[in-house]
């Protein structure tokens, strides 16, 4: 069977927890221009730590002495499975703890939103010196527990069920690559524990209309044999919502926007062929109604090959140029 260049036994294509903001507006998401080979499962634990001291109240950047540093820790199990070389299924199950270093507010802990993605590569072709591949992804997410959404910035998430549709293009020339993706996130309305709330007007209901969101991601770097090293820039824009008013608390339907800069390394251990290390770091460089967070994530993944007559995992699918 002809192995695609982008179908790779070496690298797990993974969901990254992108807790970028005052809450976890960025759910688990897949933005890699690589695929798991057929009947290969990549699975493992991932840990993430994210914190911020400054946040944007609307467009005004401030700190809050009564919160100090707000931090969240994520423990999750993530995985990707190659249904075929061109169709992958990805999942993530995160457990989150939040905490404020100052003030009296109680931290939260519990299972956050599970996500499930299908990734399809309909096109792979040679253009110039490199390979161009096109991907379509669809993902859903939903809360795994009855956690509290209306307790920002310490709530575990926003509780909104989401459907995401993503288009992605990846180009690799030699050892260098670039990936560009755009995602539209449909967000379902949520229920909160209050029976009335004020946004820019009074609402006599416990249901909150959640605006949809749009995100873009650009990543580029080095991808060869045992290592992927990349930098990325991404943006999340909420299509609607309102600003936090002066000295008010945040609310789930705020207009939360963030632009982040980050780096990501995946390393395939030489001696333990079925293990892969992933380390990721990022920082919010601009935002609105979100925390200016700095995040690090690290994971260790195991690759299990369910194919009977598959080549050994260590074999490079196709000689890299």
């Amino acid at each position, binding site marked *: 069977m002809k192995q695609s260049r982008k179908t790779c036994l070496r690298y797990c294509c993974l969901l990254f927890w992108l807790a970028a903001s005052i809450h976890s507006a960025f759910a688990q998401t897949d933005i890699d221009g690589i695929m798991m080979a057929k009947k290969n499962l990549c699975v493992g634990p991932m840990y993430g730590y994210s914190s911020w001291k400054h946040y944007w109240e609307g467009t005004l950047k401030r700190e809050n002495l009564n919160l100090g540093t707000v931090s969240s820790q994520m423990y999750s199990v993530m995985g990707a499975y190659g249904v075929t070389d061109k169709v992958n299924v990805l999942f993530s199950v995160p457990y989150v703890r939040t905490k404020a270093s100052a003030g009296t507010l109680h931290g939260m802990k519990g299972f956050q939103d599970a996500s499930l993605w299908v990734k399809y590569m309909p096109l792979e072709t040679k253009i110039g010196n490199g390979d161009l591949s096109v991907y379509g992804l669809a993902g859903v997410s939903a809360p795994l527990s009855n956690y509290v959404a209306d307790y920002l910035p310490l709530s575990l998430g926003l509780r909104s069920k989401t459907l995401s549709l993503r288009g992605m293009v990846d180009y690799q020339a030699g050892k260098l690559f670039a990936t560009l993706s755009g995602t539209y996130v449909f967000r379902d309305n949520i229920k909160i524990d209050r029976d009335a709330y004020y946004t820019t007007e009074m609402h006599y*209901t416990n249901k909150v209309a959640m605006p949809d969101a749009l995100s873009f991601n650009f990543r580029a770097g080095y991808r060869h044999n045992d290592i992927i090293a990349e930098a990325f820039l991404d943006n999340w824009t909420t299509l609607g919502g309102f600003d936090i008013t*002066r*000295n008010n608390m945040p609310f789930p339907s705020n207009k939360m926007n963030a632009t982040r800069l980050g780096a990501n390394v995946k390393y395939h251990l030489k001696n333990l062929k079925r293990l892969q290390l992933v380390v990721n770091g990022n920082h919010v460089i601009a935002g609105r109604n979100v925390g200016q967070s700095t995040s690090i994530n690290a994971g260790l993944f195991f690759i299990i090959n369910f194919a009977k007559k598959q080549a050994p995992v260590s074999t490079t699918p196709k000689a890299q140029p």
Partner: protein
Amino acid sequence: MKKLLSCILPLLIIAAVTVPLACSKTEKGRTDDLPALQPDKTDIDAGSWKPILLASANEFSISAPIATNTPEYTAQLSEIKSWQASLTDGEKDLVKYWSAGAVLRWNEILRGLVAKHNLPPYQNDDGIYPAPNANNPLAYPQFPFANPPYAARAYAYVSAAQYDALVAAYYYKKLYNRPAPYKVDAGIKVLVPQSDLPSYPSEDAVVAGAAVEMMKLLFPGDQEYIQQKAEEHKRARIISGANVRSDMEAGEALGKAVAQKFVTRARGDRAGAAIGTPTDWAKLETDCIARGETPWYSLELPKRPPMLPLFGKVKAFLFDSLTAISLRPGPPPLTASKKMQDETDEILSLTKNDTRDHYRIVHFWADGAGTSTPSGHWDAIAAEDFIKKNYSEVRWARNMALLNMSLMDAAIVCWDTKYFYFNPRPCQMNPKIKTLTGVPNFPAYVSGHSTFSGAAATILSYIIPDRATAYDDMAREASLSRMLAGIHFRADCEVGLETGKKVGNYAVDRGKADGAGN
């Protein structure tokens, strides 16, 4: 592989198309689509009910209306007809919105303004908190900071002014007995339920006039919004064929005149000085230390002056100042006592066991910053029950006034108690206590939520006896929520509930004697 694709892809496409279409974004409020108010009885004799501030129902006179056979009246009928000849959807929406009830809608508008303004000011660079200035309401921090005592007082004044204005209006309705325009001219379409109540002066205009005049004082920075609502309200009544212009003008003038009497009272009720001075704040602390007790201190950074420490001296509606002091409960457990230690331990243990149901209860009742406060929450509870009762406007106003006077007077007795004892919060006694909602910036004993809720449940149980058990359960849950949240001791909540009930009973006594019956 192809099989699988042919399964997954269509599914994804279907999901992509249907899910976004299936979830409609806007969420309707519970009172958005109410039917028009159709009172079970007109309460035509409400002009004889006992007013709150007015010496008598006819203290402010209004002139006799023009007769329905005059050319001027005919011209006013024509005005209705010309509106009705070409109604826009927006105008139909206005009629629908306002026909649910004038007192109800103005109460909702007021709750919205309270929520908008219920935000503690941010500190200056030097760490000093600026105070809102009523004479410059739009400068930061905007006036008012509609915190719980301020809000309770606002609801009380607006409700009480509307009630007195309606008592006067009903007096003149009966006296002048001018029929509604649709009874005079069959050519008038009527877009609201018909009524035998005389239409001069308009009860809707009276309610709007009193609200506008009162809210000008309470929310001076929002006059344009308030005025716009009043214009829409008046237009809705004329469009609907319920009132002619002269009904509206007489009603508005009467509502404003009556409200002026409440404005004068409000200017002299000592609420303006309730914020106190740095000398007052320091004295509260030194007096408490002199008694050998641990004083309350602000848990905010930087330390914020206590919220309205002199609000306990505000002039109550239901009793005089000596009675207010007599309602002050006995002291909380001494801060150094074993009892206080036990109560602190109880709160620590509750907050460590922070179940999901605790959060539900705490957040449902939190009514903190950016909300309509506990008084507004009780107004919402009451309003949604009153809607089912089909009260006349004057009975709506009377019941809202009884409720809101209880809530304001509960705030007065509660705030007097809080600053008399100046007792710390649980997380001051033990910093290990983490709270499930924000810690209010004033002393603990007695719990405001408990006092408000005890008072509200008591008067509402008198007004709607078949809901008494439900109100009592709600009051207990609201009270308990403050312990579960880690911001109050058991004594604060239990004594607060009892104190609130005592305040509520004054409103019950008033209700029994005001001639309205139930």
